[in-house]
């Protein structure tokens, strides 16, 4: 215990000293992004190409969940339609790259703007709705929008959707460079950009204003906060993240098809943000990892147990549901909240044990 306590004391000293983050918001978040980026790079190099593709998936889920963190976690607007916003981003990406021959980076910037605009329009309507009515409206979006692809098969490719060529890794990385790692890097950079922008916004006035509107609309208006405009802004920002996530989805999967953006995706995103921890960027990380690994784990488990096919095919969903319900019962504030509480508890225990040891040392000395 003493060694751990000393290690933590040294870490705390380092945090107060050379590990201290800059106070200026942009510099602070750029430093964090570089740190996360390095960790992401190292991880991507040491894992298998299959794991790289999982990492890439986690990165675009994270990007979408960052948007939901803003909208639902911080601003209190419930959206069951974020899968549809991802679909807008994905289809726009395929059309811009495949038909207009845009380069990847301008495409991702453009789809972010396009989806943000769509989100702004939706947000203007959503600002007039509350609770279940807002959920119902966004649900209609999640169900209705992917169906548009069937209505315009010439443009959107119908049920089969549209495909695009995979991104080509630079020749300098070598011919044997795994494509999945390159995709993971692109998705990782996109996720870090979303992280920096949203973290900047949340550290300042916007985060406070979003939460004020969520908690007490009447008081928010009385102190001069334009409630409807704030809600539209949250929707726009959230949609921008969903659009970028849709673009990154295409980078990873080279496909935009209605089947990929069904209602289940929207519900999964909502599940992820709640399971990870509503309203925190850390929660979005845990939520993204849960969305990637929980279904895979449930599928593996169902395969490991020899069960009739009709049972084993449904078991992953059941296990997924059980994990979700259990998680909510044990950690109502999500994984991030549980980790925070565990950290506090451990900190108190360690401080107590350190002070007790110091006390006994002093007595021995006397």
């Amino acid at each position: 215990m003493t060694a751990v306590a000393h290690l933590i004391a040294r870490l705390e000293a380092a945090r107060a000293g050379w590990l201290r983050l800059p106070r200026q918001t942009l510099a602070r978040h750029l430093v964090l992004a570089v740190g996360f980026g390095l960790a992401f790079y190292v991880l991507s190099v040491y894992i298998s190409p299959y794991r790289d593709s999982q990492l890439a998936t986690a990165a675009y889920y994270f990007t979408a969940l960052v948007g939901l963190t803003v909208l639902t976690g911080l601003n209190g607007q419930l959206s069951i339609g974020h899968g549809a916003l991802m679909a807008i981003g994905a289809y726009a990406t395929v059309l811009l790259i495949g038909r207009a021959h845009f380069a990847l980076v301008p495409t991702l910037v453009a789809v972010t703007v396009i989806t943000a605009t769509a989100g702004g329009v939706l947000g203007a309507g959503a600002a007039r709705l509350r609770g279940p009515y807002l959920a119902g409206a966004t649900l209609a979006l999640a169900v209705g929008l992917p169906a548009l692809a069937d209505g315009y098969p010439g443009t959107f490719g119908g049920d089969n959707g549209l495909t695009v060529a995979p991104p080509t890794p630079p020749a300098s990385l070598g011919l044997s460079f795994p494509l999945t790692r390159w995709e993971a890097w692109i998705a990782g950079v996109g996720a870090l950009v979303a992280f920096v922008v949203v973290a900047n916004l949340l550290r300042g006035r916007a985060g406070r204003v979003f939460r004020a509107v969520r908690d007490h609309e009447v008081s928010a208006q009385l102190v001069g906060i334009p409630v409807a405009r704030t809600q539209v802004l949250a929707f726009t920002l959230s949609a921008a993240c969903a659009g970028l996530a849709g673009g990154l989805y295409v980078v990873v999967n080279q496909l935009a098809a209605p089947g990929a953006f069904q209602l289940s995706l929207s519900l999964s995103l909502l599940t992820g943000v709640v399971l990870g921890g509503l309203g925190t960027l850390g929660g979005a990380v845990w939520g993204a990892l849960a969305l990637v690994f929980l279904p895979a784990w449930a599928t593996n488990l169902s395969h490991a147990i020899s069960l009739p096919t009709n049972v084993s095919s449904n078991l992953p969903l059941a296990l997924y549901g059980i994990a979700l319900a259990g998680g909510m019962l044990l950690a109502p504030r999500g994984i991030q909240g549980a980790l925070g509480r565990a950290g506090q508890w451990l900190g108190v225990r360690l401080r107590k044990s350190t002070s007790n040891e110091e006390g006994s040392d002093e007595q021995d000395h006397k």
Partner: protein
Amino acid sequence: MLPRGEDVARGALRVSGLSVHFGGLVALSEVSLDISAGEVLGVIGPNGAGKTTLFNVICGFVAPREGDVLWRGHSLRRTPTHRRASLGIARTLQGVGLFPALSVLENVMAGADHRRRSGLLSGLLGLPRADRDESELRAIASTMLERLDLAEVAQRLPDSLPYALQKRVALARALVCEPQLLMLDEPAAGLDSGDIARLRELISELKGSMAVMLVEHRIDVVTELCDRVAVLDFGRLIASGPPEAIKSDPKVLEAYLGAEQPYA
């Protein structure tokens, strides 16, 4: 935006011929009153008299069927609620109405929000301008917390504080707006005698620096603090004048006691 700090000796706020109906219920009927800069106006009346509705109309939460609210001679009819804060109108609610997930400091910073200068882009990019804005807001809010003896609880969440302190935080949040008109809706409700004494001191300190409208059931508080008192009953203004005159007004006594003559 209207100029602030100008000499508005008379008629800082003028309410003229205000009528509000909720379906068949008449909440306010042709109510006219005004309040001068630096004056403390008490608004009293039995429950359901229309006091809070009057506040809601002045704040913009309720649109009147007839009449108008003039602030420094300008109609507020087309001014949304959130813009009235930047015009210098602040209000506390009957409860506390704090933001439960924000610390005490952040609650008060939210009150000073309309004084920011940086825009959305600065916030998105985390530019130094946005940081400077935050630092200034934090300093303004901290000063206000010190003024109201709340500095020690600056980092606490409102729900962890006693009710009296929560009400004081709500007052700090209203005052940090730098209001020219402060509307207090039952500020003494739920407070003990010590807290009420402190509230009296505070409102006395504010006297002269801003107009204060005070809805309060504690007649002793109203009598001590207010320059004038307006009495509402069933949505009508039945009396208005100095507190001592109001206390013996037969219409007021009838409204409160249901009798034409005061009890001996």
